[in-house]
Structures are given as C-alpha cells and as structure tokens.
C-alpha cells in the first residue's frame, strides 16, 4: 500500500455573490484517519467539503490532496476526483440504473474494466455493505439505509484514497442510521482518509481521530474527540453540543 493521502487547506475563502461562506479556512487533515467536521447549520460545512473535490469553485486559497493541487482545470480535476469519493446526504443514486449498474458504471466507463470483472467487484462491495440481495433492483425499490449503503459501495468501486461524507445519515430513520454508521465504522478501520460531516457524536467518539468544529465559515476548534466532547474551548461549540444533546 502507498502512503495514506493527507489534505492540506490554506486560507480558503469562498463567496456566494456577496455572501462569504468560507472565511479563510486553513487546516491539515491527517491521511489514513477519520476526521469529523461538525457545526451549526449554515456554517459552511458542505461548502468546505465540496471545495475539496472541486464541486464548488472558490475564490482565494489553496487545497492540496496527496500533494496535488486541486485546481479548476477540468482534466486535472477529473483525474483528481478518481481518488476522492463522495457520499451525499440525499444519496443521489442513478434512478435509471439497477443497484449493480450504479456500482459498476464508473469502473466500466472510466477505468474500462470488463463487465464481468466490474460486476464481481461490485458484488463483493455490495456484500460488504450488506445489500447484495438487492443488486438487481432499481434504487426506487430500496429503503433509505439501503440506498445510502449502495451509494457508499458506488464510491468505493473507484477505490478512492479519500472519502468525503456530507451528512450521510441526516435523511435516515434511526434504524437505518445505525446500518450506515456500522458500514462507515468498518471503513474507518481500513486506512482510507475520511472526512465526515455529521452530527452523530457517538460515531465521532468511536472512530474520529480529530473533530473540526466550524462556525460562520471558520474552523473555530480542532481537537481530539474526547477533549472536544468533555471540554469544548469555544462558547459556540459549548452551546452547539448542548443543542444536539449528549452523544
């Protein structure tokens, strides 16, 4: 295995029109570990995450993933995204394709895998996230938890070095939340760099190596999960933790 991929962000600022969503964010994200990003709604977590794989353009600052700058040159960006998987809050499965085809589409069309190889790999991944039995269904026929696990398998099929999760469990009922978190906990043991936006503090406690707390477009606190939960430094983090309740 190659060295884990770390992420370096320097003075990242992003404006939506005149609204400044990110206010000079600088942070180093450790390779091969799970970093949890939390903060109140509208604090810029999604925007930050989407900058990491270039889904969002930004105005000033730099991002490097595994030593390679994230730019706006389309080809380089496409190349970089091969190594950076993303899981969305709203799943975004391809509704016109079966679960199996959702997972095999990218390897077949982008890595030019043969169908048989891609399907074998996909079935292994679906097995791993526990939805192998649904392989031939369309996404519309799955429960929310199953959909999100398929979305994780789809991202894993490209064998990414970095995985970004944007509130992967926020749209799910409690039972499904657990299914998905179990898969993510399993993943976190595997040595992929993970950046997870979530309010699941139990998850953060168990697997995160660090917690980043974001407020008003800034990362205002960076801490080990234990330290963050027991004695958050900033007032803002204190009231945030009080709002979402104990882990």
């Amino acid at each position, binding site marked *: 295995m190659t060295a884990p991929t770390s992420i370096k962000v320097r003075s990242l600022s992003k404006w939506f029109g005149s609204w400044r969503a990110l206010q000079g964010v600088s942070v180093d994200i450790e390779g091969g570990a799970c970093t949890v990003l939390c903060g109140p709604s509208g604090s810029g977590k999604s925007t930050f995450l989407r900058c990491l794989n270039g889904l969002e353009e930004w105005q000033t600052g730099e991002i490097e993933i595994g030593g390679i700058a994230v730019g706006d040159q389309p080809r380089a960006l496409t*190349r970089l995204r*091969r190594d950076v998987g*993303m899981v969305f809050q709203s799943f975004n499965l391809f509704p016109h394709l079966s679960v199996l085809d959702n997972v095999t589409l990218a390897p077949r069309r982008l890595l030019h895998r043969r169908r048989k190889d891609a399907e074998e790999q996909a079935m292994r991944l679906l097995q791993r996230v526990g939805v192998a039995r649904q392989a031939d269904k369309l996404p519309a026929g799955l429960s929310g938890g199953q959909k999100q696990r398929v979305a994780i398998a789809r*991202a894993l099929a490209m064998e990414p070095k970095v995985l970004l999760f944007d509130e992967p469990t926020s749209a799910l009922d409690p039972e499904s939340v657990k299914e998905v978190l179990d898969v993510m906990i399993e993943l976190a043991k595997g040595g992929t760099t993970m950046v997870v936006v979530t309010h699941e503090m139990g998850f953060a406690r168990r697997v995160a190596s660090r917690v980043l707390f974001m407020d008003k477009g800034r990362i205002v606190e960076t801490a080990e999960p234990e330290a963050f939960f027991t004695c958050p430094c900033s007032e803002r983090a204190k009231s945030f933790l009080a709002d979402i309740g104990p882990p």
Partner: protein
Amino acid sequence: MHAPSSSRLTPSGVLATARAYPFSTFLTVGLLYVALWLTWRIVDWAVIEATWQAGDRAGCNPEGACWAFILNRLPQFTFGFYPEAERWRAWIVLLAPPALLLLAMAPDFKGRRWIIAGGFIAYPVAALALLSGGSLGLSHVPSDQWGGLLLTMIVGIGAFVLSFPLAILLALARLSKLPALRWLTIGFIDFWRGMPLVAVLFMSVIMLPLFLPPGFEISRPGLALTGLTLYSSAYLAEVIRGGLQSVGRGQTEAALALSFGFWRTQTYIVMPQALRAVLPGIVNSVIALFKDTTYVMIVGLFDLLNIVTAALSDARWLGLATEGYVFVGVIYWLFCFVLSHVSSRLEAQQSRVVRQDQILTGSTQ
C-alpha cells in the same frame, strides 16, 4: 351509479332510468342516433356502394367510393416515378423502418438495442445511397423520379434521425455556462422557430446552394431535408431542454464526484433520464414532423400528398378528390397511430418497472 336500483338492462329498468333523467336520456339517444347515422353513411359509401375495379371514373358507381382510382395508381402513390425495374430498392427502403420497429417491440435479446439504434442512424444515408444508386453496380436514379410514400418516408425519417442528435447538442448548448454559446444557440433556435416552415423550405432550396462550395451539389430532396431538419431540430431541442432541466443537480454532482467528465455525465447519466422524462413530447414532435413533410410540395417535390393531388387532375379520373384525400388521411393516421402506440408501450414499460419495484420494496421491509 346514481341511477335508481332498478336500472338494469330490462325494458322496465331502462324506462325507469329514462323517466328519472329525461334530459340525459334525450341527449344519449340523440347522440347515439347521430353516431349510428354517420357510421352507416360512411360504411355505405366506403364499402357497400364502393367500386374496386374499373378502368376510369365512368366505370365507378357514382353512389359510392371509387377505390379503383386509388388501386390503379397505388404503385405511383407508393414509389413516385421510380423505374419499375429498380423498385426492389424502394421496397427495401420502405420496409426497413417497420422491420426495425417490430424488432424494437420484440423481447430482449443480446445486441438488440445496437441493431435498432444503428439501423435508424444508418437509415438516411443507406436509403439515399440505395435509392440514388450510381455505385455498387446500381444504376443511377435521379432524385426527381422519387416520390410518393417513398419520398415521405425518406424525408420524414431522415429529418428525424438527423435532427435528433442536432437537437441534443442544441439543448446542451442552450444550457451551457458559456454565455456566447448560450446566446448563439438561443438565436439559432429562435430563428428557426420564428419562421414559417414554408419560408424555411423556400430558403433552403433557393439560398442553401449559394453557400455550398462550387461543384458541390445537393439534390432537391436533400435540400428540403436539410431545411426540415434544421426547423424540427429547433423544436425538438426545446423539448429535450425541458427534460435536461428535470434531472436534478444531484445527479450531475454524483457523476462528477465519481470523476465522470462532462460528456460521459451527459451520455450515461443525464440524457437517459432526460429523454425518458420527455418521451411523450418527443413523440409529439415526431408526429408533427411527419405531417410537416407534406410541405415539401411547395418546393416541387412529389410526396404522398402532392402526388395524390396531382393524380386528381387526370382526365380519366376527374372529381375523385374525396377518395384521394381519404386515402392520404388514412395513411397518415396509420403512421401516427403506430408512433403513439410505440410510445405508450415504452411508457408503460417504464412505469411497470417502477411499480414492480415498489411492490418489491413493500415486501422486503
């Protein structure tokens, strides 16, 4: 439903209903009478009193339809003035599309999609090459001898097959982030949509040759086909744009995040969903396009409608306009019927997949 409980189809039941609802009973009986009367008149004229074999108008029963006229002229209505010895070529051109359509209705087999798609894409070129000849040992048949249903089919299917990819590109450009490209496309689409088809056809026949490099010539059907293609691509582009806009942003983002580039995102993820979403609109455009082919008569082409119109002035068969136009109408109606049938089959397939899916979900949860 709201009738008294005695409203069975017994004499007393019917009478009771009639007494309870005098107005609707009156209306029902009246409409029924009109419908029956019309049906009777049509059947009487078109079948009972009709003449199927005659040498000229005088040989036909004046009380009924003179189908002998249509039957006599059928080869000409079908092929125009295409030489008889070469008609097998025209037969192939005429029968290929229905064969492909039947194939499309057939149960799944490996490669079916490719045969159908390839067949339709290759159709205009192959049909033009086969009909015009001049190579592969086929004798040359100048395009002014093509006509009738044959010409209608080539122009109609040709314009559709050519305008479809053009419309996809226009729809994508119309939604492009590049302002110059977007405004150019809007201008292009509005230009073709803003002109009457008649003007488009005149322009393409008179002006298009001026833009062609010297020594390069397109036949009259080719010029008309070009005009019709540009015209209908503008309409189709707007239908497809609606489909593109109905596909959520999340789909594009998921594809980009998987490292699909723009074209692959469109090809594998956005277009399949967009085209499915606007299938009824596309079929609508195709039907409109098919009927619009009749306008090629104004640039001197003898499509089905024009060749029948021309035949009406034959001295031996004067005064048979009704028969001629009924014939043309039935042919066009058949085409549109087949098209809408195919499209509703496709839609039903679509919704069946979804429904089955929901039932499965219900059973697994």
